């Protein structure tokens, strides 16, 4: 702030004075005024900061302008008062350290103040916006990474395959093929749209893998009615929902866990839902789950805008995630 004030003072003085002889005394005078004004404004705004935060951008800007005008008026008045009280009357006007024309001094200060505040606010606004963009981009990228298939699933699958290679080579071969399909899908661009048929297929492949590992403990009930197979859907939208359901709703159960997957078309909309039982005790925090859901929501919104939605419903015994999106072929 002090730097801005000083630079402004230099610029103003350069523009005003035509001779170097007058430059330094004028600069000293101008920067004294500007630095004091700037510091007072900064202090005032700092004090007001918690209040300003409650306003919208426009409201906060208006409040800032008002504060700036009040502070400038006060500082200018004080300086003018000091000037008239202490300066010797016989000093030549041009050399005077203090302003002579009261109203001109006050009004010009206010105008300069408004212009500079406007510039500064605009600058802060733009740089803040930029900062926010960078942050949100980074967040989306992290979400995309975390939404990929869980390491827990990968290594458990590898363990399953390690055993199957000895006991059931045929099943091991299928498991390797399945795992490859899954990873190919998860390594693809997460914003890519695939056909609903493809997404259902990859979800079934995933189910096969988990079935191999969990055996009778996993029961998945599919109920699909009249889904347009060619409709577009972001890749890996349904699969992570099944993965969550298994991780939170089947694995922690001592005996059989049931996951119900439902899909139907109504008019121009497709509705998919995944429902699982809730274990009595929460096995782990919900954080991972939230991130995955947030990521699916973001990708649905990117693909279909506000007509797509994702919602969760939790009751005593069940947990259900539903998504809805328009048919787009």
């Amino acid at each position, binding site marked *: 702030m002090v730097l801005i004030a000083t630079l402004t003072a230099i610029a103003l003085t350069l523009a005003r004075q035509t001779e170097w002889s007058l430059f330094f005394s004028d600069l000293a005078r101008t920067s004294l005024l500007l630095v004091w004004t700037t510091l007072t404004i900064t202090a005032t705004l700092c004090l007001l900061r918690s209040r300003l935060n409650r306003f919208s951008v426009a409201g906060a800007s208006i409040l800032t302008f008002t504060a700036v005008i009040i502070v400038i008026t006060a500082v200018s008045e004080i300086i003018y008062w000091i000037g008239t009280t202490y300066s010797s009357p016989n000093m030549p006007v041009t050399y005077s350290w203090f302003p002579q024309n009261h109203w001109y001094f006050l009004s010009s200060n206010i105008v300069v103040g408004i212009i500079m505040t406007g510039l500064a606010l605009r600058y802060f606004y733009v740089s803040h916006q930029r900062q926010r963009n960078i942050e949100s981009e980074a967040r989306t990228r992290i979400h995309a990474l975390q939404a990929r298939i*869980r*390491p*827990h699933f*990968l*290594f*458990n699958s*590898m*363990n*399953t*395959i*390690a*055993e*199957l290679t*000895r*006991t059931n080579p045929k099943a091991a071969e299928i498991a390797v093929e399945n795992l490859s399909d899954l990873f190919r899908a998860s390594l693809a661009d997460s914003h890519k749209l695939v056909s609903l048929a493809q997404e259902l297929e990859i979800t079934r492949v995933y189910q096969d893998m988990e079935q*191999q*590992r*969990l*055996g009778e*403990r996993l029961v998945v009930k599919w109920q699909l009615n009249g889904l347009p197979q060619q409709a577009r859907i972001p890749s890996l939208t349904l699969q992570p929902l099944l993965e969550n359901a298994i991780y939170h709703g089947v*694995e*922690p*159960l*001592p005996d059989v866990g049931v996951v119900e997957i439902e899909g139907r078309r109504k008019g121009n909309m497709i509705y998919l839902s995944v429902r699982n039982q809730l*274990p*009595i*005790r929460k*096995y782990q925090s919900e954080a991972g789950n939230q991130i995955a859901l947030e990521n699916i929501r973001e990708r649905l919104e990117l693909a279909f805008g506000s007509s797509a939605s994702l919602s969760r419903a939790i009751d005593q015994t069940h947990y259900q995630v539903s998504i809805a999106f328009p048919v787009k072929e």
Partner: protein
Amino acid sequence: MTTRVLIADDEALARSRMRRLLEELTEYEVIGEAASGSEALQMSMSGSPDVILLDIRMPGMGGIETARHLSALDDGPAVIFTTAFDSYAIEAFDSHAIGYLLKPVRREKLERALRFAAQLAHPQLEALVNDPEQPVTRSNICARRGESLHLIPLEDILYFQADQKYITVRHRLGEDLIDEPLKELDREFADQFIRIHRNTLVAMKWIERMEKTPDGQYEIWLRDCAEPLPVSRRHVTAVKASIKKCI
């Protein structure tokens, strides 16, 4: 002499792979396979293995809680944790020098962990379960009845009451005795139980009402419990406050 090993994992294929690896090593004998934490605990009592390979993520009672109950056994097995991926737990194991294996397990690593496990055992495990940074709040209390162990789900427990030597655990299906300091129980379950007397901890969710008797004493009535419990004078205010908070 062979080392007796117990395998605990909820996935059948993971168990059979571990068994196969162990059978390829000569000096180890698999004495059983447990599919859950409580099964592992029972089999540890009955089969007295030297080492247990304990999966962390199991339904019901997970590996870490199981280890906690095991560490209370007089002659419990050495514990080697197994996990596919669990960065949080692994950090804790590393900091306490506790053996663990990452699945899929390599034979050489299994061999090394088993050899190492024979030398160390309980001190490390106790350090882990008592680590205030990694609190392991049990979801079951383990009580011994003769030669067998019984797990009492925490949500079924009405109150703990200390006698001279033991603590009575009153739960929905009866009573059991355990040998643990009341102070420790109070600390571990502070979010669910409240001290109402020098010797009594009560489960907040079972509290029905508090009453004042004609002689100025306070008593707490629990659901499913015919007898009231006396509330000592110095706990009355705190008990009142938490009852109010619950309602």
